């Protein structure tokens, strides 16, 4: 299920849905089970599964919760494929770390999810050395403002994370110094 990234149009639409999916929003609210409004019912269900909205009326809570956790697990696996060193460095803690961070947060795609998580871990001093090296390498190669899809850097650049230093020149990235261990 790892299809290609779907681009800006869906992202803009997701912003809209993200606002709709706020708890208490019209479509995601837990009240009523309207007939004949498949679009609204589908939107409310997806919002409950991936964006932290309340469970729509009428659904059995335990099976939907199991589906929600399974979706998070699938997402964790996809992010791990994009950030193999980060996931490997966290080892057994990967799933709980990812779940804690991702729960209720809608995805921006696996690349950005992993990038955002790595930055969050760096901020609270919890980024393991291999993950720091992966983050430094990514930041030397690409420009990412946290709000838009990352873009390749065209000018030479250096990036640091957890003592790791990576440089990029003419599109080639090298880890100059490993992270503190």
């Amino acid at each position, binding site marked *: 299920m790892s*299809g290609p990234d*779907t681009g800006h149009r869906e992202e803009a639409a997701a912003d809209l849905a993200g606002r709709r999916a706020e708890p208490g929003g019209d479509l995601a609210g837990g009240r009523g089970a309207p007939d004949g409004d498949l*679009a609204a019912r*589908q939107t409310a269900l*997806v919002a409950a*599964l*991936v964006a932290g909205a309340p469970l729509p009326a*009428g659904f059995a809570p335990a099976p939907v919760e*199991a589906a929600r956790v399974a979706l998070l697990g699938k997402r964790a696996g996809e992010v791990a494929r994009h950030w193999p060193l980060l996931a490997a460095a966290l080892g057994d803690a990967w799933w709980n770390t990812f779940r804690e961070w991702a729960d209720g947060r*809608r995805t921006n795609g696996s690349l950005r999810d992993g990038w955002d998580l790595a930055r969050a871990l760096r901020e609270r001093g919890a980024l393991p050395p291999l993950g720091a090296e992966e983050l430094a390498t990514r930041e030397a190669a690409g420009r990412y403002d946290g709000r838009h899809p990352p873009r390749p850097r065209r000018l030479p650049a250096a990036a640091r994370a957890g003592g790791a230093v990576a440089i990029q020149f003419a599109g080639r990235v090298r880890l100059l110094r490993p992270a503190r261990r």
Partner: protein
Amino acid sequence: MTGPSGVGIGWRPEIAGFVAELPGLRFVEVVAEAVPVTGPLPPGLAELRGRGVTVVPHGVRLSLGGAEPVDPARVAHLARVAELLDAPLVSEHIAFVRAGGLEAGHLLPLPRTREAVAAVVANVRRTQEQLPVPLALEPIAALFDWPEDELDEADFLREILDATGATLLLDVANVHANARNRGGDPVALLDRLPLDRVSYVHVAGGAERGGFYHDTHTDPVPPEVLDLVGALCARHRPPALLLERDGHYPPAPALRAELDALAAASGFPVVT
């Protein structure tokens, strides 16, 4: 451009080398969204086509069951992949994967209502108009039901197939998972499905976790699913069966053993 036949396997880049060395293989499936429509075919796939192996594009992100119209660009991509692979048919799911622009990240079940039947039928027809080949529809595995269900699974599927002329891609692991998680007798469901309209069958592994059976595609095929393959073939053997594996790939001998078990359960020749 012959239809799926015998025992096949889902082609994935991670196991391309393994798949390339299966001497009796006549049929694989590829995730349609993973096939680029500009530039060359992924290495391995082109080689299989060169050997005359049938490659069926399998879409996972059309969201045919979405209340909104299917995205024409996604349909165009699927149609182009079918042409590039000279495929005899393509397949997709009776499911939705996004709503209101929010991506679910996986296939979600539809309410079994007339309104949902109408939504699927409209999207399937829009898709069929653009496709160069027939479309097979796959019912999914789900952990939960919608509260507003009006039809049972067999009637729901039959209404969709009758209205669209699509064939059935029957996933016996999904039949097992749904019976286990949502209730019902899996063999009784087989008896109510139009087995003469099955284009091919999916078989996959899964695992019990937290009181539910999860159709993971990353675990071995359990005996219960192989038993269902036997029950299906005793009623009406489909033209082809395909093993789906999507990660946590086992060593080659274990994967070969799973393909051999499928051959044994169905009576098709071994492909390993």
